[in-house]
């Protein structure tokens, strides 16, 4: 459990540096898109509709004749923000609700458990329409919030189950017997052992959320032009992807690389932190 041991372990691993490098580039893309593309993603030439990659348009042009590369570059900000923001919000709620329910048990567990069930059973589509309408605008923040509201229950159930499973382990009982305060027991003994599957699910949630954003747009609820996002690109590409696969493939590949990097990084860090697995 020593944090000091993590850095020496990971810094020699190629599998650590690869995702770090990729994510660093992505963050740069999101922060300074202008560095990577001098083309305006919204400068569109309808007469060049759905043209495949050509000089000046390395990824080709979409149905409206806009540059796909510029849209991928400028779309990184919205997509990464939505993916990370809503996962963080969801994870935050899930850890609090799940830990409380799992550790306290009894009526606390009942109330929080049923609350989770309610959110699970509430039709996502209906919730999305109502929330997005009451917020008035389909902004990045609004979409991230909607997606977070509907992704925390799964994570919360996972946290709860894992906390329950480790609550009565010998080392936790020992810690309790030694009179450690609850906060310390939770932070140092219960959560570290419960967090593995939760993090695995959370890293996947980032990708899931970015894809879900495109489904929202597909259903007519998500981001809209003039916003630029990968999800938006995926959703608008679908009507013509047989004729113009390039409009779909490039944002899709960027999305996949993002998720893969996050998962790999998560794995490496977890291996380094987890006492049972360090060999």
């Amino acid at each position, binding site marked *: 459990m020593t944090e000091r041991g993590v850095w020496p372990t990971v810094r020699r691993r190629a599998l650590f540096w690869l995702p770090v490098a990729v994510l660093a580039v992505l963050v740069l893309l999101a922060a300074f898109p202008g560095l990577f593309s001098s083309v305006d993603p919204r400068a569109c030439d309808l007469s060049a509709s759905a043209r495949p990659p050509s000089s000046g348009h390395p990824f080709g042009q979409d149905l409206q004749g806009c540059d796909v590369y510029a849209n991928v570059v400028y779309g990184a900000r919205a997509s990464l923000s939505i993916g990370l923001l809503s996962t963080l919000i969801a994870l935050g709620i899930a850890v609090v609700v799940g830990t409380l329910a799992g550790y306290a*048990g*009894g009526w606390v*567990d*009942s109330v929080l*458990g*049923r609350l*989770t*069930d*309610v959110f*699970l*059973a*509430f*039709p996502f*589509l*209906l*919730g999305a*329409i*109502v929330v997005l*309408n*009451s917020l008035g605008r389909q902004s990045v923040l609004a979409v991230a919030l909607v997606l977070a509201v509907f992704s925390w229950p799964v994570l919360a*159930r*996972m946290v709860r*189950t*894992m906390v*329950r*499973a480790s609550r*009565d*382990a010998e080392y936790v009982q020992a810690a309790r017997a030694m009179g450690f305060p609850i906060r310390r027991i939770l932070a140092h003994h219960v959560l570290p052992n419960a967090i*593995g*599957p939760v993090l*695995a*699910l959370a890293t*996947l949630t980032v*990708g*899931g959320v970015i*894809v879900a954003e*495109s*489904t929202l747009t*597909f*259903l007519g609820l998500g981001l809209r032009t003039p916003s630029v996002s990968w*999800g938006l690109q*995926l*959703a608008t*590409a*679908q009507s013509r*992807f*047989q004729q113009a696969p390039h409009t*779909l493939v490039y944002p*899709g590949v960027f*999305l*996949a690389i993002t*998720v*893969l990097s996050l*998962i*790999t990084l998560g794995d490496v860090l*977890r291996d380094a932190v*987890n006492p*049972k*697995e360090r*060999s």
Partner: protein
Amino acid sequence: MLRFTLRRLAELALVFLGVTFAIYAAVFALPGDPIASLGGDRPLAPDVAERIRAVYHLNDPLWSQYLRYLGRLLTGDLGTDFHGRSVAERLATRWPVTIRLALTAWVIQVVVGVGLGLLAGLRKNTWIDRSVLVLTILIASVPVFVLAATAQLVFGVRLALLPIAGISDGWPLSYLLPATTLAVYGLAAVARLTRGSVAETMGSDHVRALWARGLSRRRVIGIHVLRNSSIPVLTFLAVDLGFLLGGAVVTEGIFNLPGVGQLLFQSIRSHEGPTVVGIATALIIVFLLSSALVDLLNSLLDPRIRHD
């Protein structure tokens, strides 16, 4: 056990009231007039619309509409939609479709997901492990509407192997493509969770001791590793089954399966409160049951978990 069941039932009743009201209110809050657009893009004459509105008490306040709905519900009447079709009848024809689809997709997830996860977990950090990761993530990075349309083109049009729309070929033929499409999205999660748990359990003192005692590989993995790794996987699979039963809106739509997801989508679009509430009520029961079941299974699998 009886107390456990009774308590869950009491909780169910409370949750039921809360959720039905929340959903009724949400549908009520949807912007726009559902009646004017009954005729699609050719709107109804205003006086005709007004007459239909009166038939369904749509000018009444929310609480009065909800109470009327609850009252009818107590007599077992789920109400009708704006075309006078019985909600109960519509649900009865659609649930079987969704249940078949959900279970098929779920079984695919269990078999393939756990299988891949086991493979990856036992061969941790090898090329097998990495290919499983890349494969499951790549597929899940494609939005469902694209994957579904591609599957239809490849298997339905080019190869002409499988039906792509409707249920006229029955189970399993009509359900294979949609269920597989649907399963792909939970696959990555199931595989990752299984892999993580298996890898962790394999490295645990408990399993090392079993190896040391010279137990056969099959026995150690089959009984001890799987059993001890199953808690997070089971937790996820239970929630996932609930989601699948909730009706895959996009998948059912694209494969033209007349299930609950499709109905939910249409009902929300046309602001049919009673239908939406009817579907959501059944879903709540599914989720309550699934969370109870997971607790029960987990405590059976891991005796350390107390049952309270």
